[in-house]
């Protein structure tokens, strides 16, 4: 296994030699301010450094190396044209403080993307500022809080959140001062409408619905629920992280959403994982436009302008103008596919998931029998009697060279296995994965120990996750 760079260090292994006289530099710093010990940097030769990092890069698992069925994460292919265009010097050499007239190109990129997202959302305006999905949720919740404040209805604190929503929703709403109340799903995986009724009063701030939800189920009652919430004076937030299941088919604004966020890094094919960068634009209905964060890009005559003059703005939520590199990539994706192409990505993402679900449910249990869209959630019920847990199935998949699906989420399915194939994959790849999943189900039947003790073909066997959680080693020490 690859050592840490610190462990590779050996005295005298530096290989950049500067003349002595260039190193005798006088620094006019008070001795009291200097640390007694020198910085402990590793000494490694240049070639060894190159080999170290090249080997590490080869250990990476990514969508460019193999199938990545991580449910909820939408690990679709990130087309290379996105990378090529966002790397143009006309984009990458810009500075945030350059004068407006000299950056009309990037402002047009932002303006066009705002408009495309407005069109897809069916709402009135978009901010590109939020750095990721949860940041979008936070901005959206700030907007709702400010709306009630300006309206003189600050007593509205109750935010209803179904148990099928993304886990970040309750956290975001608490950060904006609301009080989340969990609504449980019915046997179809839909929101239980009866449970909403006691909250339809003047303390209701609104509801945050993930549509389709974390089970991959599109709630057909969304518009009915939205009407109930609106009649009680509340707002409807739609978590649009799963927009890849709706593009060109349903506009959230048309079914009653007032505020929503997109995940450009999921739906619109920009790289993600391991901390981003992401981008979580927020779209709002007309009466909420005056609360958007600043700035918004506008077009006046032939010129693009940054508008900082928004009446009840929630203020600054990010330095600069959003994650520009991601915004450019997303626009390239829009323009590459066009209206028809984007709609087709949804068709194929849903078809791929439906096909895979039909094949896999022959040997894996599924709790909710409802029609699903771009992803579905299996569990280990059929394998459980042999003592096999979802974790074991996931570990066994690693032996066959696959990244495991999302497991143990959503929490409403015990021992969940959440699979999202995305539209990127060929039928061949999908069939190969299905074969392996079915093979593992057979192994669970005939040789359960093999599955329980997986992985067998990797550098490392089973990790002690409990110890890792209780006694994590977060820092290298000599």
């Amino acid at each position: 296994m690859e050592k840490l760079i610190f462990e590779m260090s050996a005295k005298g292994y530096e290989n950049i030699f500067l003349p002595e006289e260039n190193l005798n530099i006088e620094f006019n710093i008070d001795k009291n301010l200097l640390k007694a010990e020198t910085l402990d940097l590793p000494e490694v030769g240049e070639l060894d450094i190159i080999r170290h990092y090249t080997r590490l890069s080869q250990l990476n698992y990514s969508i460019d190396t193999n199938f990545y069925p991580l449910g909820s994460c939408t690990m679709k292919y990130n087309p290379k044209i996105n990378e090529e265009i966002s790397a143009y010097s006309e984009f990458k050499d810009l500075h945030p403080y350059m004068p407006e007239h000299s950056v009309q190109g990037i402002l047009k990129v932002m303006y066009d993307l705002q408009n495309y997202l407005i069109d897809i959302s069916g709402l009135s305006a978009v901010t590109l500022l939020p750095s990721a999905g949860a940041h979008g949720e936070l901005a959206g919740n700030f907007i709702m809080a400010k709306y009630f404040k300006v309206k003189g209805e600050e007593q509205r604190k109750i935010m209803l959140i179904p148990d099928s929503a993304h886990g970040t929703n309750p956290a975001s709403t608490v950060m904006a001062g609301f009080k989340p109340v969990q609504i449980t799903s019915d046997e179809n995986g839909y929101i239980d409408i009866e449970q909403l009724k006691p909250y339809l009063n003047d303390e209701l701030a609104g509801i945050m619905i993930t549509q389709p939800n974390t089970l991959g189920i599109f709630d057909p009652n969304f518009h009915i629920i939205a009407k109930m919430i609106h009649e009680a004076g509340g707002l409807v937030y739609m978590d649009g992280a799963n927009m890849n299941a709706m593009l060109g088919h349903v506009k959230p604004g048309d079914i009653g959403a007032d505020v929503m966020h997109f995940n450009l890094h999921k739906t619109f094919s920009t790289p993600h994982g391991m901390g981003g960068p992401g981008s979580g634009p927020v779209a709002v209905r007309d009466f909420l436009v005056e609360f958007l964060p600043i700035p918004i890009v506008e077009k006046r005559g032939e010129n693009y302008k940054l508008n900082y003059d928004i009446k009840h703005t929630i203020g600054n939520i990010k330095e600069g103008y959003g994650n520009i590199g991601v915004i450019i990539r997303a626009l390239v994706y829009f323009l590459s596919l066009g209206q028809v192409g984007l709609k087709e990505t949804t068709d194929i993402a849903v078809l791929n998931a439906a096909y895979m679900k039909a094949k896999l449910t022959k040997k894996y249990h599924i709790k909710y029998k409802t029609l699903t869209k771009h992803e579905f959630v299996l569990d280990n019920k059929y394998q459980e009697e042999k003592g096999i847990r979802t974790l074991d199935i996931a570990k066994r998949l690693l032996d066959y060279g696959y990244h495991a699906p999302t497991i143990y989420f959503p929490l409403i399915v015990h021992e969940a296995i959440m699979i999202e194939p995305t539209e990127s994959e060929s039928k061949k790849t999908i069939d190969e994965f299905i074969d392996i999943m079915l093979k593992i189900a057979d192994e669970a039947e005939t040789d359960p120990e093999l599955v329980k003790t997986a992985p067998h073909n990797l550098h490392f066997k089973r990790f002690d996750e409990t110890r890792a959680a209780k006694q994590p080693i977060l820092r290298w020490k000599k």
Partner: protein
Amino acid sequence: MKFTKTHEWIAKVGDVYRVGISDYAQSHMNDIVYAESEADGSEVKKGERLGTLESVKAAEDFFAPIDIKVIAFNDILADAPETVNKAAETDGWIVEVEVMNEGQLDELMDESQYKEFLSTLE
């Protein structure tokens, strides 16, 4: 010992009441690695959050079975939260509490009712 639909139990042990989570609940949580509760002296109403258990896979709140006041957190859990996995309904109790309204105990399920309730799940 009385149970809630959200899988907490409450039982009188000596002079005090103890609250924990059921064996069924611990088996659904995987290995528990951290436990915390509201501070000593806090009054928690029935159904409100009494504390949080964190497993390798998720963090889950547990709730006050009836109106209670927290007397003490189970110190064993600070170093050995896995005690909840090993003995959820005995040594793995989570908080000692003062019961504010004994009458509310009648609203909870006894062991056989709880078992029947479990059989309706899944």
